């Protein structure tokens, strides 16, 4: 048996309890999620047999479950969430970690108490339309294109140069778009993290750290943003939350 204690996070708590069988169910019934306390701090974990595996694979299903467990804990506690895949071998190791880093855990839990993370990704739906718009509206790009067309130029280097101009124009356009998003939402957030755009079509990928009391207003602002003149057409909004503030601990 290849037993691991798989950890979800640390909470403020004085009593042990069970959150029930809401854990991963890769190889049978879902794992029971337990809270074990050590002088005012508690660790949320599950006892898992990994069988032949070295570690739990980071599949989408397992990641969603990790998130789901943390959400269930968030109903009654402020949780300092651990990232997926944090595991130890023995309960003594949990005790050691708690003892070594108690002050840090306490102050971080204090910092995130009453706050949530909201994540917003925005991307264009059809890139053809975006490129068409650049060809039409960007002065430099249009001048180059017209010049090539008017003189019937087929030179490869000239075409590469046109491609480069279009690429630059796209970067500028993305910057303009994210500025609109940030101007609107930053005033309502305590903190934010602008993350890498993971596709060509994406122009905003931002995690916001928001007070629970500001959450409704923040939702409203995201709604308004989706009605913004430059954002209402040809865009996809992926607005996720509230989740535990992984990006702000």
């Amino acid at each position, binding site marked *: 048996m290849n037993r691991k204690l798989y950890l979800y996070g640390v909470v403020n708590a004085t009593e042990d309890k069970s959150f029930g069988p809401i854990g991963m169910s890769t190889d049978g019934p879902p794992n029971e999620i337990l809270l074990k306390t050590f002088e005012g701090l508690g660790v949320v974990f599950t006892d898992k047999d990994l069988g032949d595996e*070295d*570690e739990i*694979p*980071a*599949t*989408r299903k397992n990641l969603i479950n990790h998130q789901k467990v943390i959400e269930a804990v968030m109903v009654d506690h402020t949780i300092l969430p651990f990232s997926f895949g944090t595991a130890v071998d023995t309960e003594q190791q949990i005790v050691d970690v708690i003892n070594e880093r108690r002050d840090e855990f306490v102050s971080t839990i204090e910092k995130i108490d009453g706050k949530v993370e909201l994540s917003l*990704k925005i991307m264009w739906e059809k890139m053809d339309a975006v490129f068409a718009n650049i060809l039409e509206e960007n002065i430099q790009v249009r001048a180059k294109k017209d010049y090539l067309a008017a003189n019937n130029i087929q030179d490869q280097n000239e075409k590469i140069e046109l491609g480069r101009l279009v690429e630059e124009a796209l970067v500028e356009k993305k910057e303009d778009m994210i500025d609109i998003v940030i101007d609107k939402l930053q005033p309502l957030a305590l903190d934010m993290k602008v993350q*890498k755009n*993971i*596709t060509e079509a994406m122009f905003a990928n931002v995690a916001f750290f928001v007070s629970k009391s500001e959450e409704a207003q923040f939702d409203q602002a995201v709604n308004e943003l989706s009605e913004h003149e430059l954002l209402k057409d040809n865009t*996809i909004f*992926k607005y996720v939350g509230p989740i535990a503030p992984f990006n702000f601990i």
Partner: protein
Amino acid sequence: MFILDDIILSPIKGIFSLAKVINDRVQEELYNPEKIQEDLMQLQLKFELDQISEEEYDALEEDLLARLSESKKRMRSNPE
């Protein structure tokens, strides 16, 4: 004589070393954990936007996770 050897052998050496460089690059790319993580995120996004089916997603995810796990093993056995 060794001049002749050089002439005969050098292009082959050249090709071999070029092939090795290309292979190293491919391996680097294939087993670069950051790149794999990014591919995973892109894949998840595609699935969430209904651009691929769950079966396609699962198959591609399995391949990426296998490479991620392999890349971790390589890093452990060959830390830089």
